[in-house]
């Protein structure tokens, strides 16, 4: 009797659960599960986005790409700067004064007109204001002031000749509304809580809703100056876990995700998925701390570069998704890039010879020594990225093969970056990557006073070239300067330039008109993207 009662409880629970499953699942046809409105493009972000383009972070950057506009953006094919909020621009003879003519038909998402006041406010009160922590200040720090000529014309004056200004104005430099933020106090600018609840931009999509931990939904802006987007909405789903992203992609809840090379075979098997190899302006590298022994010696740096089989790394770890790097300027910056530089093919014998020349001779245990000190190198890498972790292991083995007592240290990304930026930098060597503006100007990274120079690299000859490059306006003349800079850097080997990796995108086949470029830049060309059946 009692057993029957318990059985009936259990049976009831099972039936109820099955009933819910059947009832809720009956209306669904696999694999396309509830996708929401059909004309919506869905992509993942790994955390909540703060729709405040003063602060960095990938989720913020992605959402802000479609919510806001910049004065300049990059052409979807050539990545050359083209007008966004600015229609055209010109440079005065003094090489310091730029005139930007603004579009006249731009409306903020609240219907107010966009004018020169917004540009002046954004640059002077936000970007250049030392009380505001603008994360891209390094790119515009040479701007001294903005003068309003009329409602649709501004003059941007720089302290020094600054050839790359238009490019930098397209790089994560969103213009914000003066008519709203102009009355904010400095504390409110630092924590614009009210603005974040209903952010107002000029981009092709306006704010719809943001549900913490779930998603940000942006809807097509009917009065967008470039014409109403063909999509009705873009949804940025907060999905931190890569497996969950893959599951949502497979079931049609996501239309795009960025994958690692080892995931390509899996995604290739998914029906309705296509793999897009998107070159982007980037490079991966093994960095040396040029301020400490043994990296102060060029021969050691060259030897360690020769010791690494970069071709094998590209083929086996990146599965060929990219191109061998020759320097810090990406081939996409085609007017400046040159591969006519000293190459460092995998050459173990040459690496050993260079180390011998530098005074590092092999001891009885095979480890090289100089003045009794063993050649010991710790290579740091961040945890969680399979490509970088595998690269670090391969490089360690390559260095061991030429008599270096090499070890890999894995730590969390924040901890690693924090140590790299300590003064002095306690690390010897590390492997990371850079994504840069589509420009040849690498002064920030390799000039001895460069604000982003994490390598401790200082060479007066290169400093001079980089300064010249920044101050030269004629592109042909600049190309020559950067050609010399690339040759010099390849020979001097301040870091091991590994690969220009492609961004591998898993894209739903229903998406049409998606430009095959890095998705950060592709998001600035969403007006023409459509969703088919």
């Amino acid at each position: 009797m009692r057993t029957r009662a318990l059985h009936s409880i259990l049976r009831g629970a099972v039936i109820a659960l099955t009933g819910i499953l059947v009832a809720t699942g009956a209306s669904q046809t696999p694999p396309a599960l509830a996708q929401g409105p059909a004309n919506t493009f869905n992509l993942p972000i790994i955390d909540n986005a703060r729709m405040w383009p003063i602060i960095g972070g990938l989720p913020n950057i992605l959402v802000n790409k479609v919510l806001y506009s910049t004065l300049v953006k990059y052409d979807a094919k050539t990545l050359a700067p083209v007008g966004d909020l600015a229609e055209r621009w010109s440079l005065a003879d003094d090489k310091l004064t730029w005139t930007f003519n603004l579009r006249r038909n731009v409306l903020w998402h609240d219907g107010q007109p966009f004018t020169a006041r917004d540009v002046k406010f954004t640059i002077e009160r936000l970007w250049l204001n030392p009380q505001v922590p603008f994360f891209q200040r390094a790119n515009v720090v040479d701007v001294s002031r903005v003068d309003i000529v009329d409602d649709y014309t501004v003059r941007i004056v720089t302290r020094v000749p600054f050839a790359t200004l238009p490019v930098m104005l397209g790089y994560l430099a969103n213009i914000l509304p003066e008519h709203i933020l102009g009355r904010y106090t400095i504390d409110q600018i630092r924590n614009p809580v009210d603005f974040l609840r209903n952010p107002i931009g000029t981009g092709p999509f306006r704010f719809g809703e943001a549900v913490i931990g779930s998603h940000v939904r942006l809807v097509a802006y009917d009065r967008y100056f470039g014409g109403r987007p063909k999509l009705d909405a873009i949804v940025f789903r907060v999905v931190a876990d890569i497996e969950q992203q893959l599951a949502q992609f497979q079931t049609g809840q996501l239309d795009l995700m960025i994958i690692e090379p080892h995931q390509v075979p899996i995604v290739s098997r998914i029906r309705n998925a296509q793999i897009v190899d998107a070159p982007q302006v980037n490079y991966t590298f093994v960095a040396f701390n040029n301020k400490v022994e043994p990296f102060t010696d060029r021969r050691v740096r060259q030897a360690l570069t020769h010791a690494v089989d970069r071709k094998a790394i590209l083929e086996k770890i990146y599965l060929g998704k990219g191109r061998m790097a020759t320097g810090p300027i990406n081939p996409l910056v085609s007017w400046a890039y040159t591969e006519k530089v000293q190459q460092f093919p995998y050459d173990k014998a040459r690496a050993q010879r260079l180390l011998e020349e530098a005074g590092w001779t092999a001891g009885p245990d095979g480890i090289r020594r100089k003045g009794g000190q063993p050649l010991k190198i710790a290579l740091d890498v961040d945890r969680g990225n399979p490509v970088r972790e595998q690269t670090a292991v391969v490089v360690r083995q390559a260095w061991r093969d030429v008599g270096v007592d090499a070890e890999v240290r894995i730590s969390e990304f924040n901890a690693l970056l924090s140590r790299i930026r300590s003064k002095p930098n306690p690390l010897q060597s590390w492997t990371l990557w850079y994504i840069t503006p589509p420009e040849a100007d690498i002064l920030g990274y390799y000039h001895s006073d460069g604000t982003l120079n994490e390598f401790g690299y200082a060479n007066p000859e290169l400093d001079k070239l980089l300064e010249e490059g920044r101050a030269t306006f004629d592109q042909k003349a600049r190309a020559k300067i950067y050609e010399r800079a690339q040759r010099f850097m390849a020979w001097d080997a301040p870091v091991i330039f590994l690969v220009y990796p492609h961004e591998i995108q898993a894209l739903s086949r229903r998406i049409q008109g998606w430009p095959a470029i890095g998705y950060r830049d592709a998001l600035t060309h969403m007006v023409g993207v459509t969703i088919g059946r």
Partner: protein
Amino acid sequence: MLRYFAHRIVQTGALLLIISVVVFTLVTQAPGGPSILLDRNMGPDDIARMRAILGLDRPLHVQYIRWLGQVVRGNLGISYQAGLPVLEIIGQMLPNTLLLSAAALALSLVVAIPAGVLSAARPYTALDHTVTFLCFFGISIPTFWFGLMLIVVFSIALGWLPPGGMRTIGGARSALDITRHLILPAVVLGAANMALFARYTRSSTMAVLRADYVRTARSKGLGERSVLYRHALRNALITIVTVVGLQLPRLVGGAAITETVFAWPGMGSLAVRAAFERDYPMIMGITLVISLVVAASSLLVDLIYGYIDPRIRYE
């Protein structure tokens, strides 16, 4: 009774203070720093400026006192990552976690208690062995693996249920839609508890069934159902309530792995991201709320003891 409460409240206050000091110290002294300070495009001057704006350039004790002062005024600060008040964010995430955890708890109790009692009533039979096997399976199975398997079967292969999220974005809000999203994470979260509760129910019920008063009850002619549920289970419940009480903090703390695997917007996934991003105000806010709930749930369990067993007195 009142004295007991006053004592517990003072105890809780002191505990929260100690926890906040320890967590604040650990979090701010851990290697790395807030992600918003570590943007690759920020130079040393920008980072120093940002640190000053966030107050991170001040001595640790000053930072803590400043945070405590805010908390006393009911302000948990602004999240570095989302840019919104921590209290507001927790307020949005807490109900989601409560929903998931309550569903998981209900599911586990509904299955575990009858299964445990049944096992105890017929020990060492095929039924008992089956329940025991399933319990060990439930306890041993890694949450993330179980979650992924359910996603593979029910979402990808069968297409019955969504693999993640809490609702269909852009679709009409409905209880049915949320239920569909809730099923898989609730089953995964409930599975481990289900096994745990069933084991405790079995062992405590078996112990009670051997007690003299149960023999007396049987000898005076009470039906087996009445013996099991009115006498044995009620006394066995003390243990079960204790175990369930210990799980209560998870109602608020969320289950980090389950929420992450299923992209469920709750306290667990929020805590994980806050830790990764070193979002100090968010980490402290979550810690405070969870600590409060742990203390409150402990008090609640004590009160339930008194209800179940009238012999228990508060002094």
